[in-house]
């Protein structure tokens, strides 16, 4: 064999070979997953308490608090936890000291989200300052652990590229967010003002959207046996979106260029949603599982949000607040939460199964994925979720519906929690039973 071959191989081995068997301990992702339903319950409680005032306009204190219980406590919580699990496997990124990192990220993210929500609700300055510190520490640990690894990846697949850009967008979001929080905490700086527009955009159209795109490239074909996303699409979609985000941030507010860039972003995201729905229609697996239903709701919500966003100009001016709120609900509770919820139903039982079969000697003792998390339970929770989501949307138009929406949302979250805990309990059960046999 030629020397160059060996050198090349050594390089491949170094960057990817280690990932052949490198999953972190199961407690690393699970602490994040099990915390998520609690934040949904917290957000529902707040919604119930604030009532119709939470759905008046997006800068309302209770609304901002609920938004961040979702974007930080639910979306970022699952996404960071899932990435710590997936990066070693999918991208060959090794995370040093996974337990320590997981503890730091999880605790700081939880505390920071609650403090930020409290700050918004009661306008208490020290809470904004404390939240900023927690969130800087938590996300900081995540960036050091995951970001540094991502920078070192040698072979950049479409997924690792999209995920890397998503993590960069998270960095931008967090920096802007912390500046805004410091501003509210009393550390006033004049130049922070435009950040209030940039921050949510980078959070939703950057971090959340790019990450789901990168993950979809892998899991849509894998879970449903669909054809792959077209190669040109996977190569260009994420970088184009990221480029558009940067240009959009530099363009002047209220300018035509900015509208054009927004239309461009919307068009690419619409392309993603439609392609995914189309691929689903070509799937070779005929079985309709709950995860597929969640993904469909997610893609339809994304399409709905984009349509609303692009036609907002045609609707009467007085509707503006309602349109913005509906678009926010469609993106956060529809697009993002739905995809995440659906994915948990694949990831959690699989990880438990995987953990069980590698720790138990006798193969027969190991329950399969559907015994660990029965489809009927998942399906019930899906209907609760869908009811809560649609009622919440309707509540934007007819405000008394906010009460049933909050109750349904909490019920859906508790059902999710029950399903996840039950799956973990199956792990215990099987784990204890085995040595005795």
């Amino acid at each position: 064999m030629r020397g160059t071959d060996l050198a090349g191989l050594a390089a491949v081995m170094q960057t990817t070979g280690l990932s052949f068997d490198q999953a972190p301990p199961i407690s690393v992702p699970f602490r994040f997953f099990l915390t998520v339903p609690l934040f949904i319950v917290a957000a529902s409680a707040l919604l119930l308490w604030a009532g119709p005032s939470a759905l008046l306009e997006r800068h309302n204190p209770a609304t901002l608090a609920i938004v961040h219980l979702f974007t930080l406590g639910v979306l970022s919580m699952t996404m960071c936890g899932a990435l710590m699990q997936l990066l070693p496997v999918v991208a060959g990124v090794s995370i040093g000291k996974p337990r320590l990192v997981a503890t730091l990220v999880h605790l700081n993210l939880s505390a920071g989200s609650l403090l930020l929500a409290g700050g918004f609700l009661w306008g208490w300055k020290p809470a904004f300052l404390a939240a900023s510190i927690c969130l800087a520490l938590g996300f900081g640990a995540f960036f050091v652990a995951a970001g540094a690894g991502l920078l070192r990846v040698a072979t950049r697949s479409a997924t690792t590229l999209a995920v890397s850009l998503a993590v960069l967008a998270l960095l931008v979001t967090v920096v802007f967010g912390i500046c805004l929080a410091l501003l509210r905490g009393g550390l006033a700086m004049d130049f922070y003002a435009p950040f209030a527009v940039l921050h949510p955009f980078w959070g939703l159209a950057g971090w959340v959207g790019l990450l789901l795109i990168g993950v979809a490239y892998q899991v849509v074909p894998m879970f449903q046996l669909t054809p792959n996303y077209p190669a040109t699409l996977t190569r260009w979609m994420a970088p184009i979106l990221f480029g558009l985000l940067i240009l959009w941030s530099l363009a002047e507010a209220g300018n035509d260029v900015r509208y054009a860039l927004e239309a461009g972003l919307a068009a690419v995201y619409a392309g993603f949603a439609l392609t995914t729905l189309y691929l689903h229609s070509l799937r070779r697996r005929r079985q309709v599982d709950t995860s597929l239903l969640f993904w469909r709701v997610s893609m339809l919500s994304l399409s709905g949000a984009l349509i609303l966003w692009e036609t907002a100009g045609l609707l009467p001016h007085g509707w503006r607040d309602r349109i913005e709120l509906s678009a926010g609900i469609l993106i956060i509770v529809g697009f993002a939460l739905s995809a995440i919820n659906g994915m948990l139903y694949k990831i959690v039982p699989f990880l438990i199964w995987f953990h069980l079969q590698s720790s138990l000697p006798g193969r027969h003792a190991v329950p399969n994925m559907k015994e660990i998390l029965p489809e009927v339970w998942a399906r019930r929770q899906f209907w609760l979720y869908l009811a809560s989501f649609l009622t919440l949307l309707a509540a934007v138009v007819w405000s008394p519906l906010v009460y049933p929406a909050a109750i349904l949302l909490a019920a859906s979250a508790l059902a999710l929690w029950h399903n996840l805990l039950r799956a973990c309990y199956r792990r215990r059960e099987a784990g204890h039973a085995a040595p005795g046999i």
Partner: protein
Amino acid sequence: MDTISVFMTQAHHHCDTLFAEAENAMVDGDWEAATRQFAAFSRETEHHFKAEEEVMFPAFESATGMTAGPTEVMRMEHQQMRGMFAGMADGIRLRNRDAFLGASETLLMLMQQHNLKEQQMLYRMADQVLAGERCAKVLAAIRALEE
């Protein structure tokens, strides 16, 4: 000429198709078709495992000197998948649809992750160390298994 990547990736797609057909037949409640399709699926997949375990992995190991590396992990995952074949076969034997579909769901996750790892890493490495002559030899040996 085919590379190892191209040849082996085709085998993965072929097995995926057979898997989907077996599972679809079971979803439709067609026991006879499910039994037949499952037999085809497990036979073809077992054949692919054999091509790897008996021909390609040893060639890779002797070319690189790595016996405890990636190929060892892949062999272990083959064993795990064989466990799930057994679960599906039990489902057919006991006429237990849920047992079959639970095992097939688990197998699919396992199989797809395994295939990705092979396609994105192991086969690419194999293409590097088993080029030209060596590749032709490996592919010939695999085709010889079929006879």
